[in-house]
């Protein structure tokens, strides 16, 4: 996968605010939950873009907007050049076919009263042009086979399957309409460790088989690194750093990314003694009351006066603008710098990834 291929999805200034109202008869807006507050990124054809961040950072809201399950407050999402946030009716339906979603929880995202055949085949009821009625059963069985399930299970119900198998059903449903983009929101976090690897391998295989582009949202940093070509780190509704996987994981320049990476437990007891950890103090601020300037400044050990005044732009920081190398990637920090951890990690060559 190369980043030089054509962009398939361009997200620009994406915003989602949920209004907070007061009063029953005369509802007036008293504030807003700023779940997503200005997100830009580009997804290229055949690429996997990982989005990481902690709970409440807005990553799932971004996923929903990409699939048109939520309408953005502002900003645009261009699929092959066309802004899908302004579409409606037939045009919207056609676009939706091409962007499908795989959900986190395989226990609640499948209707318990529908058979597997009905669940995987349901997209064909909405988009009948994709598969003629008589052909659907065969297609569903084919899909089950593709995701590694026995095609004879077509008449079974979701409760007869394990968590990993259910996630395969969810993936088969996502593939039914032959989409070009799959948005996967925490697709393996509800699964056991030994089953996670199976599902990750499946997603990897399907990507090359069907030429899919993925937006892969997760909080598990090592899994995201394994599957992604590029990674974006979100904090409080914004992407604070984005770049190729090695740039983000080995040469992070944003303090939040550095703290996040240093907090990931490394499965190596030898590393226990000489690990340098950045333990952040305090909690993430409320999205109804976002700090001025840089939104990370309230927990940042580098914060200065300037950070409260100026919002840092997501761009290559000035310090790295004239150098080429892995540190020169987009990072929204006034004082972006490589941490000591980058050097330490290069030595043993085994970071959290």
């Amino acid at each position, binding site marked *: 996968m190369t980043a030089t291929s054509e962009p398939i999805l361009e997200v620009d200034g994406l915003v989602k605010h949920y209004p907070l109202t007061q009063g029953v008869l005369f509802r007036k807006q008293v504030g807003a939950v700023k779940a997503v507050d200005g997100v830009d990124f580009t997804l290229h054809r055949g690429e996997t873009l990982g989005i990481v961040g902690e709970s409440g950072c807005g990553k799932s809201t971004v996923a929903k907007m990409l699939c048109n399950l939520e309408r953005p407050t502002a900003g645009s999402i261009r699929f092959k050049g066309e802004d899908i946030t302004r579409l409606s009716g037939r045009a919207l339906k056609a676009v939706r076919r091409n962007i499908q979603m795989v959900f986190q929880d395989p226990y609640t995202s499948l209707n318990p009263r529908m058979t597997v055949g009905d669940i995987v085949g349901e997209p064909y009821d909405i988009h009948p042009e994709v598969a003629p009625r008589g052909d659907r059963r065969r297609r569903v069985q084919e899909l089950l086979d593709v995701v590694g399930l026995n095609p004879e299970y077509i008449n079974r119900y979701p409760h007869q399957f394990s968590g990993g198998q259910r996630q395969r059903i969810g993936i088969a449903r996502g593939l039914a309409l032959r989409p070009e983009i799959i948005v996967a929101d925490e697709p393996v976090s509800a699964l056991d460790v*030994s089953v996670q690897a199976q599902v990750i391998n499946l997603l990897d295989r399907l990507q090359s088989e069907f030429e899919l582009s993925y937006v892969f949202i997760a909080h598990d940093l090592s899994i995201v690194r394994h599957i992604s070509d590029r990674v974006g780190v979100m904090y409080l509704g914004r992407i604070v750093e984005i770049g190729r996987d090695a740039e983000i994981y080995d040469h992070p320049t944003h303090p939040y990314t550095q703290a996040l990476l240093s907090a990931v437990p490394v499965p190596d007891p030898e590393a226990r003694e000489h690990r340098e950890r950045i333990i952040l103090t305090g909690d993430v601020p409320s999205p109804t009351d976002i700090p001025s300037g840089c939104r990370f400044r309230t927990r940042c050990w580098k914060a200065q006066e300037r950070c409260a005044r100026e919002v840092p732009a997501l761009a290559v920081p000035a310090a790295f603008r004239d150098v080429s190398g892995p540190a020169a990637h987009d990072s929204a920090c006034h004082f972006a710098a490589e941490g000591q951890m980058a050097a330490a990690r290069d030595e043993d060559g085994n970071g959290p990834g």
Partner: protein
Amino acid sequence: MLLEVRDLQVEFRTRDGVAHAVNGVSYRVDAGETLAVLGESGSGKSVTAQAVMGILDMPPGRITGGEILFQGQDLLRLKEEERRRIRGAGMAMIFQDALSALNPVISVGDQLGEMFVVHRGMSKKDARAKAVELMERVRIPAAAQRVRDYPHQFSGGMRQRIMIAMALALEPALVIADEPTTALDVTVQAQVMDLLAELQREYRMGLILITHDLGVVADVADRIAVMYAGKIVESAPVHDIYKAPAHPYTRGLLDSIPRLDQKGQELYAIKGLPPNLTDIPPGCSFHPRCPMAQDVCRTGEPPLYEVSEVRGSACHFWRECLHDRDQ
């Protein structure tokens, strides 16, 4: 010795038959030691802990055999009233989901203070002062003001601190933490694990950490017991296991962690699914999923072979398994 579990067996009566959740588990924990019990869902790791704590739902659960020796006393022979006295003062538990483990309609101060009123016979006022002290101990900012707040007014990480404070209130000799940081974000997880480790050192508690996260285990554990289908399949000091696992299941778990040098390649995946506990395969319960399985594995149940003085593996081929890793 603080705690010794000997050949514990627990089963559940279900509609589909008898589920054999724990099938002869033995482990021990010394004061000041951290034992990590590692396993996937259904491995029996939490059920074992619930039996130790005496909070297993019976029925449908039933302890069908074994002993639980706590400071030399077999807990399974005690009356409920005697056990209740040990719970809280002798041993305490930290649960995964603090929001459902705390009472939503009682202020955190009253919940913390209750420990001292019930077990130590303190007055309400003294208990409240103790509660504030504890909240400061687990570094909750502005503890004196927040003692009147209710659980929903705290963030996830703060609630988990309150759970820790509650577990440590009476300075128990043993603490069982069941996935204490699974519901938390990584940066908060690091804060909470640090706090727990620090308090453990200070009070010299024995700690049983139940988890599925190989990263957390590597960070804090002294010894590891790996569970599969209700049995301990490998038990070893933490360094040994990560260097060279002596059981193919442990090896599979370690190999399925994405590694830097394997990017772009297929991840190692243990094939198949964990067994149904009402129908555990004969012989070695891992054999249908094991890449090393031979005929003997299908019929002969492996005992916990002694790999070294401090290490055991329930695999007929533990030597080969260890050796594989050396190459």
